[in-house]
């Protein structure tokens, strides 16, 4: 896939992530892309020669670390990875929790996990702090819903794998 094609993949997926409210995925993607890719290379070093009173190039190259920008293809592949990490992997994690606990605790009621923020410490919030409360919501991971999504998630995983192959 050429650079322009890779950029089409990036722009399409970035728009989609934004449209469905997955801004956090885009934010993390941009941070990772901005950081670049660290590589090592052999480099000749200059050293100060006292006798000649000038810098000379060392004959023995040194291994040095450098940061290089991602290519459009690498950026596209990273964004597809990010899609998997927000849509495929959490689902697999939920199923693994369900299967793991069910295996050891057959009698345990395992229809859901409740995630509950501890509101005890922030019981008297000021008006300005009410935004914080909005981010602290009780939510449930319903295992039945996760199980029902398995075929969709598997399709997405396969499509991501094939798209990454096409990018490369």
């Amino acid at each position: 896939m050429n650079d322009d094609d890779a950029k089409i993949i990036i722009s399409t997926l970035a728009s989609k992530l934004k449209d469905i409210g997955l801004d956090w995925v885009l934010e993390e993607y941009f941070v990772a892309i901005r950081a670049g890719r660290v590589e090592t290379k052999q480099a000749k070093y200059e050293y100060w020669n006292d006798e000649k009173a000038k810098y000379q190039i060392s004959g023995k190259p040194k291994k040095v670390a450098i940061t290089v920008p991602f290519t459009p293809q690498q950026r596209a592949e990273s964004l597809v990875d990010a899609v998997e990490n927000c849509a495929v992997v959490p689902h697999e994690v939920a199923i693994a929790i369900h299967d793991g606990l069910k295996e050891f605790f057959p009698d345990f009621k395992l229809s859901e996990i409740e995630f509950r923020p501890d509101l005890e410490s922030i019981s008297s919030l000021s008006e300005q702090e009410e935004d914080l409360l909005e981010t602290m919501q009780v939510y449930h991971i319903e295992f039945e819903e996760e199980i029902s999504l398995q075929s969709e998630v598997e399709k997405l995983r396969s499509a991501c794998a094939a798209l990454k192959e096409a990018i490369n």
Partner: protein
Amino acid sequence: MRCSQRGNKLTPEEQDLLSQVEQGLSMAVTYRNKMAACDLYEAYLLMLVVKAAVDEGATVEFRDSTDAAAPHLTLRSGPSSIFTSAQYTHARITFPGKPPLEAHVGIYVAGLSTVVHECDVAVIDAEEARNCRQNSSHPSRNKLLVGIECKYYSSNVGIDLIRSFLGLTDELKKKDRFFVSNIGGANPQKMLVKHGIAWSTTLVPGQPKETQRIQGALSTIFRDYKTL
């Protein structure tokens, strides 16, 4: 797929794959905020801890903070104290003839300086846990058998996370502390290796070898605990 000289236009096959990913994203995403994915990942590590303990012959029961049997799993979303009045589930781990342990998600632990730090997954002495609930205090690092820092990211984790974790290990000790994430990169791995930390930066269910490796490391800690 064939790569052709065709300018900036995807082939029909590539366009179809891209559309499938777009559609799949809409259908499959149930975790629209990051916190949900992070909380779930911590629950996954709790499950691995429990499995490792059971593998080593422990009896595990899920209990709430009154020590009654928990009817279902209620875990913290975000860190809080072990002594909160809110009812959260922990796993009580019992090895025959040994003091019981408790595995918690998202509790504060007091470090070397007595400053408190969040521990994403913590296995602590059950007696310490009970005393802390009674005294409204945080467990001491000396009673922390296992501490796991869990990081769930959609793209590679930054070096800053490793730096802060290394600082945390100065406070909470280095032995039997883990750094785990679903995605890593070469640099975080190098740092963790250099500092002798137990780690995995590809710990997801789709990586069974990595899961077994971390579970094995946890089993070894429990094996030593029941032996000593």
